């Protein structure tokens, strides 16, 4: 009788329903977070038996010039990617948020790049920006400029990656902003019009404040993503020319999986985690003071 009651209880059925997913997330989501922390205090090349070395990995990190460079490149990338994609997305969304001919076509053109893979996008841009036969250099040649090396040039490679990833992600910002714009009550806009608000005043005092939550979300989200830049760097530049495009995740990948310095790489991973979480917290804290929530 008692066994039957347990078998029919919500505790058992609840766990039975949740177990497969919870188990998978535990093994592949929660265990690795703890294991990563342990690895960062060990010396291991993924094959040998790990050896405990205390905080030596973190100490080495503090004086590693290539880590410093990678972190700088990641921050420069984020500092360009985040404002460009968010502001570009805002501008495009405002242009798209109206009933004009062909707006469906324009929206599709802006959305499609979002669904393309990083590799597919990189292949297109490698060809577009090719130093010898690329379309962009052909066009620049017509007006007497270039040819530029783009991904091949130490000064331009990181900026070229910024441009390419903004192209690939701007549609995401547009989708979020369009959703937010459609949430603005028309009555508010009409009231402002009756009060004589001009286009710019309307944007500055009505639209922009109401888009605050969307902007905050996009800034947080884009920053997290920017710090995880990897695919494009691995595929196009391999961190080069020289070390011009070494970014944190590329450095971490090459240490762990190409040079076999996994413990040290795990320390970098944890620094990245803490940096990401702190940046998010700071942005949310600043957002709380700056962003106006309607409800």
């Amino acid at each position, binding site marked *: 009788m008692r066994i039957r009651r347990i078998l029919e209880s919500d505790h058992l059925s609840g766990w039975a329903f949740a177990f497969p997913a919870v188990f998978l997330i535990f093994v592949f989501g929660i265990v*690795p*977070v703890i294991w990563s922390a342990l690895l960062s205090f060990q010396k291991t090349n993924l094959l040998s038996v790990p050896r405990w070395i205390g905080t030596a990995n973190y100490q080495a990190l503090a004086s590693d010039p290539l880590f410093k460079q990678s972190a700088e490149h990641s921050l420069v990338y984020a500092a360009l990617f985040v404002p460009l994609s968010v502001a570009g997305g805002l501008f495009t969304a405002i*242009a798209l948020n109206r009933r004009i001919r062909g*707006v469906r076509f324009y929206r599709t053109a802006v959305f499609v790049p979002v669904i393309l893979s*990083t590799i597919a996008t990189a292949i297109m841009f490698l060809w577009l920006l090719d130093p*010898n036969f690329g379309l962009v250099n052909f066009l620049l040649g017509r007006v007497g400029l270039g040819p530029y090396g783009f991904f091949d040039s130490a000064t331009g490679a990181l900026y070229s990656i910024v441009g390419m990833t903004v192209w690939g992600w701007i549609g995401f910002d547009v989708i979020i902003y369009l959703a937010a714009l459609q949430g603005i009550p028309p009555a508010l806009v009409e009231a402002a019009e009756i009060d004589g608000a001009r286009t710019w005043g309307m944007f500055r005092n009505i639209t922009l404040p109401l888009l605050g939550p969307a902007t905050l979300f996009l800034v947080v989200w884009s920053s997290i993503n920017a710090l995880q830049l990897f695919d494009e760097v691995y595929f196009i530049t391999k961190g080069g020319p020289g070390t011009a495009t070494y970014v944190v995740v590329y450095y971490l990948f090459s240490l762990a999986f190409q040079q076999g310095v996994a413990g040290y790489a795990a320390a970098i991973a944890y620094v990245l985690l803490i940096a990401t979480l702190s940046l998010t917290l700071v942005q949310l804290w600043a957002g709380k003071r700056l962003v106006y929530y309607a409800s």
Partner: protein
Amino acid sequence: MIIQPSTDAPGADIPTADAARLPRPTARERDAAFLFSRWHLVLIPIAIAMLIPMVWMLVTSLETLNQTRHFPPELLPHSVRVRNYTDVLRDAPFARWFVNTMIVTVVTVAGNLLFCSLAGYAFARIKFFGREVVFILILATLMIPFQVVMIPTFLIVRDLGMINTLGALIVPNLAGAFGIFLLRQFFRTLPVELEEAARIDGASRLGVLFKIVLPLSGPALATLTVITFLWTWNDFLWPLITIYTPNNMTLQLGLTTFQGTHQISTNLLMAANVMSMLPVLLLFFLAQRFFIRGIATTGLKG
């Protein structure tokens, strides 16, 4: 962001026919009254900038190698080279990569639909021991970037003997915190009376989930499907770490080896690239609404 069961997905539907019923024209409708809006002057350059990389890829994929090096393009109707596409299929195990990617994607999507439905329902409706704590733990994993945990994840998958198999790509992704959260939120918006009535009539929990809850959850399941499809199809870093023989590669990984061996044959590379995108593009045009909604709700990932 809250996922709503109604069809008014963010950004999904473009207001059109109702314009006439509005009491008085706003700035937007006045724009529409003109045959030509000044906003076209902004939007045409934007559209060109967004489309040129793709159009140029398509053009190049139909040229001979010699033609690719000329500008303006020498593409004439009689010289369109569809052969590039068959050449790609001949030169690389492209069909194999395609099938691998399809298997991984379909199984991952199916796994997510099943396991996230079960777990999402448990977290939404069944009160069981430890529910709140476990749910918060699962949500917390959304905050951890994959790059931070990829080294131990690799070690776990290696210890399970799955390195260099499709299993490495499938098993760790069969269920995700995002899907559980998405479905739990959706299930909670459904009227609970319906489920209670079915329970009183003697239906099991499983019966309620499959016969009542899931049939009402089409939009949420579609959103989870397209997003999981997109993530899996486009994933690169994890296959890069776990797969090393060409026969077991996915398209994204295969493309990089193809690029390595065909650096000079730009036309073939572009043809390969076009083919790699086709399934995602097809799905996008078939289910644009769910893509837009899905992309808008991935915000949860941050």
